[in-house]
């Protein structure tokens, strides 16, 4: 039986760049400092202020990006990725416990402190009470969520899905990361926050691009993955390789195997535009989908080599600690 095709029908982001906008493609906001928070849209344009008053920013961002891509449609599944979950609520609950004991835990923060609060809230709002799952796998949470929906669609179990990846960064987390010296290293892009929602559909009409294949692997290197991924997808030519390089040598060394194996393939970077976060790879997918839709790559993404136009296919690579992912995307033309 032939596998069904999977397309990214719509995709929206709230990040350090202009929210819900593709303006960064031509005019990106320059990021400075060790942390750049997400630039929020006017939430009141999308959410009832009375209903939204209990929501922390990550919930509002997830709900708004989901609303934008769904545009009133319902889906067969909601799959969410988040590295840190609702960290602001978790932090408030824990701080209150430390200061006052368990007796004074605030119900709202308690209810919203779990990782799957995000997917649940989107389900309630969109009235999609079907399959709902949340993946929390550090910096490859987005790919894990995407793989779940992709596999179900390929098997024909579902025909569309809302996939999101959402992360916020409370101050305490940033402090801990500084103490651990995993941020603010020489050349490293700032930390940031990200909320990306995408609507996957088996219908090609109006889509941004097609997802041809996804590979997520734990405790491995790109060396061990690349050849089999290229051969199983019969890739003879790649227009570009887009990686999660963030400027910190210790982190970026993981990509050297890819650069050596694909010396002729132009390299694209995106984290200098969007910053680093557990959901940053979702922004890499978003940027790639946009490049494939337009058939071009903005100068600001180009790092090494000249991309031939129009861009027809892209390999998206992400490394998070010892975990790796490869995503092969193709234009719909």
């Amino acid at each position, binding site marked *: 039986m032939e596998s069904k095709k999977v397309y990214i029908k719509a995709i929206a982001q709230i990040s350090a760049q202009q929210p819900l906008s593709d303006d960064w493609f031509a005019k990106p906001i320059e990021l400075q400092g060790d942390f750049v928070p997400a630039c929020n849209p006017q939430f009141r344009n999308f959410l009832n*202020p009375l209903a939204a*008053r209990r929501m922390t920013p990550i919930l509002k961002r997830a709900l708004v990006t989901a609303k934008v891509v769904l545009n009133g449609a319902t889906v067969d599944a909601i799959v969410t990725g988040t590295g840190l979950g609702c960290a602001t609520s978790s932090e408030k609950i824990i701080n209150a416990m430390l200061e006052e004991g368990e007796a004074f835990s*605030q119900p709202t923060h308690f209810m919203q402190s779990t990782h799957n609060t995000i997917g649940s809230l989107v389900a309630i709002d969109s009235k999609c009470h079907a399959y709902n799952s949340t993946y929390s796998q550090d910096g490859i949470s987005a790919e894990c969520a995407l793989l779940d929906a992709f596999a179900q669609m390929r098997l024909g179990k579902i025909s569309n899905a809302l996939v999101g990846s959402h992360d916020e960064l409370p101050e305490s987390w940033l402090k801990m990361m500084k103490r651990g010296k995993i941020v603010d290293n020489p050349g490293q892009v700032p930390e940031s926050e990200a909320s990306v929602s995408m609507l996957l559909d088996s219908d090609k009409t109006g889509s941004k691009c097609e997802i041809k294949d996804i590979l997520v692997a734990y405790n491995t290197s790109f060396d061990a993955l690349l050849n089999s991924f290229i051969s199983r997808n019969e890739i003879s030519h790649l227009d570009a390789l887009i990686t999660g390089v963030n400027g910190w040598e210790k982190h970026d060394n993981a990509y050297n195997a890819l650069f050596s194996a694909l010396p002729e393939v132009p390299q694209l970077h995106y984290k200098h535009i969007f910053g680093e976060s557990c959901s940053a790879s979702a922004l890499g997918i978003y940027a790639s989908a946009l490049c494939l839709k337009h058939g071009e790559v903005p100068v600001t993404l180009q790092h090494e080599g000249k991309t031939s136009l129009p861009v027809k296919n892209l390999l998206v690579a992400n490394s998070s600690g010892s975990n790796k992912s490869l995503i092969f995307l193709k234009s719909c033309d």
Partner: protein
Amino acid sequence: MDNLQDILKQQIIDALNLEEIEIGDIDNDAPLFGEGLGLDSIDALELIVLLERNYGIKIKDPALGKEIFKSVNVLYDYVSKNRTK
């Protein structure tokens, strides 16, 4: 702020994240739940925690909670008579 009614109003605004509302917008006699501020059952839980944390008042009977959260004035009377801190 030395007026307990205003203090209560500010604490309600802060605890329930009523960003759009100021002390002057809350009528002392208007119902807090339903029509007035439009609060709901989760807000009631937040207010119970607020009373215990700030005034040492423990509310164990939900029916009593319904009674004392009728309006700011009713809440003010109850807090004035029962506070332990």
